[in-house]
């Protein structure tokens, strides 16, 4: 009996001695994995951020230092910023960018919210097809419709106007805005809206007092994405504007030169052009992440 007990104890001890290192290994491997993932995350973040970092750095170099062998050690100068500001009025371009990006985003949201509502809550046989068709317009290379739009704008006097550019950006972003809002609305339980309807809410009240407050993070992130896309758009802004409505993308394009050095000035202009949207993105990143992951984990 006692022998058997001893054996059992020995066996238990043996198991314990085997289990101990296994838990340690598991913990170590989990830690390693976490460290590895963190390192991977940082590497990707650094890779993405490096061009922006290099651009900011180049803006503070002289033209000859900018084109010389890459170096992190140099004496910083503001001469490119001074030259850039002396040549063109940054604020005029920045104002156009702000007006057009915000205007087109508000217009796109105003059109997309009712459209996404109807597709999410009152779908028909053709809803899926319509959604896909809307997205397919993004597959067309913009240059393919440049001449017809240019002629249209010429005839209605919209060339080089903020209104014209706002219309184009609204239409350009509309498919993405509708798709995103549709996805967010789809995730909302229908019962909540039905409860509102039972309490006698009209469609407008349903949208304004139930749908919009509940999906606000999603709407905010969609709006932010639309602002960023409009801010960075260069094809239409370069082709449809000349001087009065030209936004910051046209401002950047004016500092590239076929004859003579321009890298430092171009970098300074680009840094000034992205600075507002970078700060804006920084301030709103919480909403962006919240919105983009909205409904991802149920």
């Amino acid at each position, binding site marked *: 009996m006692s022998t058997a007990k001893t054996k059992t104890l020995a066996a238990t001890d043996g198991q314990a001695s085997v289990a101990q290192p296994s838990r340690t290994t598991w913990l170590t491997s989990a830690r390693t994995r976490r460290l590895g993932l963190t390192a991977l995350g940082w590497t990707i973040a650094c890779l993405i951020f490096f061009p922006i970092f290099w651009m900011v750095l180049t803006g503070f170099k002289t033209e*000859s230092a900018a084109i010389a062998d890459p170096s992190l050690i140099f004496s910083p100068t503001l001469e490119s910023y001074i030259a850039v500001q002396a*040549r063109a009025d940054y604020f005029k371009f920045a104002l156009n960018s702000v007006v057009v990006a915000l205007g087109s985003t508000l217009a796109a949201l105003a059109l997309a919210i009712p459209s996404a509502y109807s597709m999410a809550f009152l779908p028909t046989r053709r809803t899926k097809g319509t959604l896909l068709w809307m997205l397919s317009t993004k597959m067309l290379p913009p240059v393919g419709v440049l001449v017809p739009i240019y002629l249209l704008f010429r005839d209605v006097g919209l060339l*080089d106007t903020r209104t014209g550019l706002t219309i184009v950006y609204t239409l350009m972003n509309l498919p993405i805005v509708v798709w995103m809002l549709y996805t967010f609305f789809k995730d909302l339980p229908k019962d909540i809206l039905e409860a509102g309807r039972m309490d006698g809410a009209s469609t407008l009240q349903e949208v304004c007092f139930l749908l919009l407050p509940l999906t606000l993070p999603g709407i905010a992130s969609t709006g932010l994405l639309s602002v960023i896309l409009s801010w960075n758009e260069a094809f239409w802004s370069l*082709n449809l504007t*000349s001087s009065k409505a030209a936004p910051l993308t*046209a401002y950047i394009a004016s500092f590239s030169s076929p004859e*003579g050095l321009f890298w430092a000035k171009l970098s300074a202009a680009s840094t000034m052009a992205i600075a507002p949207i970078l700060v804006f993105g920084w301030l709103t990143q919480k909403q962006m992440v919240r919105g983009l992951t909205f409904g991802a984990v149920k």
Partner: protein
Amino acid sequence: MKLTRALPLATLAAAVAAACQAQAQTEITVATVNNNDMVIMQSLTEEFETQHPDIELDWVVLEENVLRQRLTTDVATGGGQFDVMTIGTYEVPIWAERGWLTPLDDLPADYAVDDLLQSVRDGLSHGDTLHALPFYGESSMMYYRQDLFDEAGIEIPEQPSWEEVRDWAGQLHDPDNEVAGICLRGKPGWGENMAFVSTLVNTFGGRWFDEAWNPELDSPAWQETIGFYVELLGNYGPPGASSNGFNENLALFSRGNCAMWVDATSAAGKLYDPDESDVADRLGFAPAPVAETPKGSHWLWSWALAIPASSEKQEAAETFITWATSREYVELVGETEGWTSVPPGTRESTYANENYQQAAPFADFVLEAIRDADPTDSTLEPNPYVGVQFVGIPEFQSIGTQVGQTIASALTGDVSVEQALQTAQRATERTMQRAGYLD
């Protein structure tokens, strides 16, 4: 009582009238590229507006390729967005033929049209009528490091040949000290490597097309030229030569990394400026080298100011372009910015000016090169096109860029010279067939 009431009213009316008059200013939109000479022109806006208080200038400055595409869209659709356009000798005859540009046949007498260099004038004319006024002109020539040549005991003859250039490049190539024997354009593009390569083909006795518009890119002359170019630049060029265009080579040469460089005469002012160049005091120049024939061995290009037919402010636009290309403007720039900064290659009077001759010892070379370049007779055998470093047809932009890419791949060693030229020949034939030049 009545008078006291009438007085403020009259004052108000006068103020409104004055305001209306102030607003009656004609605002003209000038589209241009971001070259140093144009930046100076932009900086002299106030000067122009003081002289012409009824005209206000609005600038649109864009990168060269963007500007070209933007202007083409506008002028072809009659958009009327621009009143003055900066275009080159390639576009002017093509656009003029389509009626997109206003003919400049009624210029004021004091503009002194006859003072414009004849070859530049011809390049900007269509049917003997000027359709754009030259803002600055350029040809190509050879720059070299006088100190390195002196050390090696090499004397440059009055007219160097490409064979000699190859020998000198071999002698002076010193990668350990970061000095390449020669720097040449390698970056693909019809206005980049093909501008240089076309002049090389011309002087080696080749041509782009025969008289019936058949491409000749696989001809022995092209094979020899491209073989020579690839060997020369591959053996004695700087590292990564296939991505070097005008700007990159300018930076390399001005930092002392090239013993020779054959490129635009407009670089001379920059290389001669000690603030911009480390080799300003060791700079030598010679005419562009030749091989079989001197014909077409150096190019002719001019950036010019034109008025699109769609502009509604023709009169004000003409006032501006005649001011910006006048003798007085050249003097104004000389006095305010320094004589090496005056727009070169447009007027005989610039080269007769003592101040300019003193400040720019390269002036005579440039003048001679520009005078000597003949876009109507640029190849050994006759050809059907106008242009030295380009072919004056609308299809050339795409042909030149495509051929430029295949030649750049031969330079990097991705394909052989023969393969590259065969590919280029086939692609050019297809484009010419589609465009209706060939059956």
